[in-house]
């Protein structure tokens, strides 16, 4: 976002040189990974892409043989290889060409998502515009003191600056995708991060094994853990997910009252709205306000909270967070769908 803090060039339009950064870029699908029966990740190699930030999205354009086009926006689920200079290009990638990952959920009446989830193959062309977004991003943008954003969204009293605040991520369904980009982008010295993800059933979880490993590694790094071995992500990773269910509501209470988790730490809780794993854990059902209070960092820690999901989910969660004392300006939302 070059020039985001400078005085605007009035009605720049096509003459705005920054607009060139948002041209459609020819890209190639490099690889795909099935994340669930309804979801798949696609890694795109995009020559000329500007480095992306975790939380941003891109527009994707598909063109049929007869010239018919369709455009949709998708959140990036991995931005680590988006910089041309990065060394983090995955094995088998296209050298130093910037790469990003999107993770897409199939909408049965959609015209783009069924293609991306079921039909697209490595080598297929696609066009990319972006990356886009400067609010639902982590690490958060540091605004100049005279910017409109700084002036109108004052920080809560006694809070650490957004860049060093602990981070609470809350995702509903496919809304976990941009949050995964944030988890993946965090370094060793990052503020403590906690993820609460709500999904229909255990088989709908995305990134389970990787989140398990990241949470385990963060406590193995010597980060004090309130209840060793009681992470929501500990245990096996499978559709039967005998572990995940008992995390929510029990472990969350302990971790939520701890507040002493250190830099680089990560904890993950899953809740299930339709079908829960077998076992003594939380039964399936929609997240409630009381559960939310137990499963997220408390307002007293002034966490920076990112909520992404279907509008009904985000509206309910964001409203509860404010009722629970979180400053509205610390609750950043990304929504899809209508009311």
């Amino acid at each position, binding site marked *: *976002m070059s020039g985001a*803090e400078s005085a605007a060039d009035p009605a720049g339009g096509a003459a705005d040189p920054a607009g060139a950064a948002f041209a459609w870029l020819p890209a190639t699908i490099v690889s795909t990974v099935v994340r669930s029966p309804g979801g798949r990740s696609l890694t795109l190699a995009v020559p000329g892409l500007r480095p992306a930030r975790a939380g941003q999205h891109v527009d994707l354009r*598909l063109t049929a043989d007869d010239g018919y086009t369709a455009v949709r926006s998708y959140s990036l689920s991995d931005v680590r290889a988006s910089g041309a200079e990065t060394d983090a290009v995955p094995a088998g990638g296209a050298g130093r060409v910037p790469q990003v990952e999107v993770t897409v959920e199939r909408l049965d009446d959609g015209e783009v998502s069924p*293609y991306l989830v079921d039909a697209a193959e490595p080598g297929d062309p696609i066009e990319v515009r972006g990356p886009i*977004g400067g609010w639902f991003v982590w690490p958060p943008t540091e605004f100049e003191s005279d910017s*409109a954003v700084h002036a109108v*969204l004052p920080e809560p009293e006694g809070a650490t600056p957004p860049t060093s605040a602990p981070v609470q991520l809350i995702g509903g369904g496919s809304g976990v995708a941009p949050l995964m980009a944030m988890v993946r982008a965090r370094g060793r010295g990052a503020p403590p991060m906690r993820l609460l993800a709500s999904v229909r059933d255990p088989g709908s979880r995305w990134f389970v094994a990787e989140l398990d490993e990241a949470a385990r590694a963060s406590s193995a790094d010597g980060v004090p853990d309130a209840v060793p071995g009681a992470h929501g992500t500990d245990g096996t990773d499978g559709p039967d997910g005998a572990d995940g269910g008992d995390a929510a509501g029990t472990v969350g209470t302990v971790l939520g009252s701890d507040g002493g988790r250190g830099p680089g730490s990560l904890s993950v809780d899953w809740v299930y709205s339709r079908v829960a794993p077998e076992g003594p854990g939380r039964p399936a059902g929609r997240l409630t306000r009381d559960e939310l209070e137990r499963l997220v960092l408390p307002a007293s820690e002034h966490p920076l909270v990112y909520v992404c999901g279907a*509008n009904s989910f985000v509206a309910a969660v964001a409203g509860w967070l404010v009722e629970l004392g979180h400053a509205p300006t610390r609750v950043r*939302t990304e929504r899809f769908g209508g009311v």
Partner: protein
Amino acid sequence: MAGFTGFGRRRAADPRLPPGQYLESGFPVLSAGPTPNIKRWELQIATETGQRSLSWADFQALPHEAIETDIHCVTSWTKLGTHWRGVSLDTLFDGLETTHEYAMATSHGGYTTNLPLRELLGGKAWVVDTYEGQPLHAEHGGPARLFVPGLYFWKSAKWLQGIQTMATDRRGFWESMGYHPHGDPWKEERYA
């Protein structure tokens, strides 16, 4: 290669669609944060020469116009033939002199968006409180939002609290986040 064929429901072209837009029958919601809890509604209209404050009763007493128009969201959906009621900004600015060419709209909750004043006057913009015959839902910006259908819909600030004219243009909230300072859907001024 499994090329894209537009399988599923291919959407028809329509001359009412600006470039890069697709038809949407629902009404998606796009907000940067929680829906604000508005305890006391008041609308402030201000220029360098004076200002006006309207209570909800004052606002309701002003003449309302019916508007039928299409709306275009920067996220690429367009909704055709929507119906609104509201007060023209020509009415709200009536009697307030200004030589300014820009304005900043501010919402309850602190969000802002900048617009050229010429896009707000001359029958191009309203403050609306009714959508499809019903009071405007809070998620869509109720009790009242700015309505500038000639520009991408983020310019139609939800939960409108005030409009202040400015001598020079300055970016508002979304415009500081990478969205275009102007936002004409027919020129595809999405991002900058």
